[in-house]
């Protein structure tokens, strides 16, 4: 009966796969909406163009204060009318008058509504303590300016993968485990500062026992693809 049961399983799996695949194709390619924050006119124009060329919708603002206003985090905690506002990524300059990018990062990570949104810090200065501090506070990545098209593309691909993964949810993780026939090891891969959900997609052997509060490591993220 064992082999029959095995065959039964084999019959079931392809269908499951099909379901996953068709879900994937029907999810379509939604445009990512990016909020860009930079006090420099020049840099705002450039980042806007970089993002548009990468098929992203952009809202560019000149300060942390404006960013919080846009997100509705400027004191009005009531989340009226936020169902429509979907931000996939926030890219902020570090050095800005008034509120720095770091302070903005903290405020975003403190908010229930937006703390899961990846925040990327941009800076013209490659200061290790600054990078560490931002990553520790939950920044997804720290990009040294000037930002290149390849940086934006890489970010977009990373975010899109995250969005797809989120849609597939646990089904996908289970599928990987079925395919590889392994249960996740107990310790996370220490040198890779990947978002836990993503890491289970890219590296099936790494821990998928992720808690949502899984902290990125202090080192800048290593991009596995490409």
């Amino acid at each position: 009966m064992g082999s029959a049961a095995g065959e039964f399983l084999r019959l079931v799996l392809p269908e499951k796969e099909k379901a996953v695949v068709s879900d994937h194709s029907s999810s379509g390619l939604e445009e990512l909406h990016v909020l860009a924050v930079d006090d420099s006119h020049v840099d705002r124009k450039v980042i806007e163009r970089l993002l548009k060329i990468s098929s992203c919708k952009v809202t560019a603002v000149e300060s942390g204060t404006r960013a919080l206003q846009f997100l509705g985090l400027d004191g009005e905690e009531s989340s009226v009318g936020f169902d429509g506002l979907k931000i996939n990524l926030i890219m902020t300059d570090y050095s800005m008058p008034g509120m720095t990018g770091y302070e903005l990062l903290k405020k975003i990570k403190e908010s229930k509504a937006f703390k899961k949104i990846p925040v990327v810090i941009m800076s013209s200065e490659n200061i290790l303590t600054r990078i560490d501090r931002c990553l520790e506070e939950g920044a997804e990545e720290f990009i040294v300016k000037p930002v290149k098209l390849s940086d934006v593309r890489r970010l977009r691909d990373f975010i899109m993968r995250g969005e797809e993964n989120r849609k597939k949810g646990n089904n996908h993780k289970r599928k990987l485990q079925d395919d590889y026939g392994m249960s996740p090891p107990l310790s996370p891969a220490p040198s890779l500062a990947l978002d836990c959900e993503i890491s289970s997609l890219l590296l099936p052997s790494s821990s998928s026992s992720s808690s949502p509060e899984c902290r990125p490591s202090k080192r800048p993220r290593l991009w596995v693809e490409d």
Partner: protein
Amino acid sequence: MDRNKQHRQVALMRQSLFDQGLLDEQFVQLEELQDDANPNFVEEVVTLFYRDSARLILNIDQALDKSPLDFAKLDSYMHQFKGSASSIGAKKVKSECTLFREYCKAGNGEGCKRTFQQLKKEYALLRKKLESYFQLARQVGPVETACRRI
């Protein structure tokens, strides 16, 4: 053909900006963001740079006139200037900004003033050359950036 000759002129003009160390790879990155729908993107960005720079130059001039010098403020202005110079690939202007900031950190007022005079010269030269370049480029139409030798 006259057109080909003009195209070559534009290409040579462009190349000389790199050869003379006025522009770096970032300028090429901006050119690559230009397309038929956005044919003047680089010039638009550079125009924003001129606007920002004019304001910063005024602020820095005024700040350099004060006594004692507020090095923190000067450094902050120059950080902004350096940032936009870097964003458009203005290599020489950017290196003058770096030098200025070093003098700020050292509290060297004379060094700052001297460097700023040089910076203004470099900026004026770059602006003049870029304006000629863009003017000619516009007359001639889109130029291939196939020759990316920097």
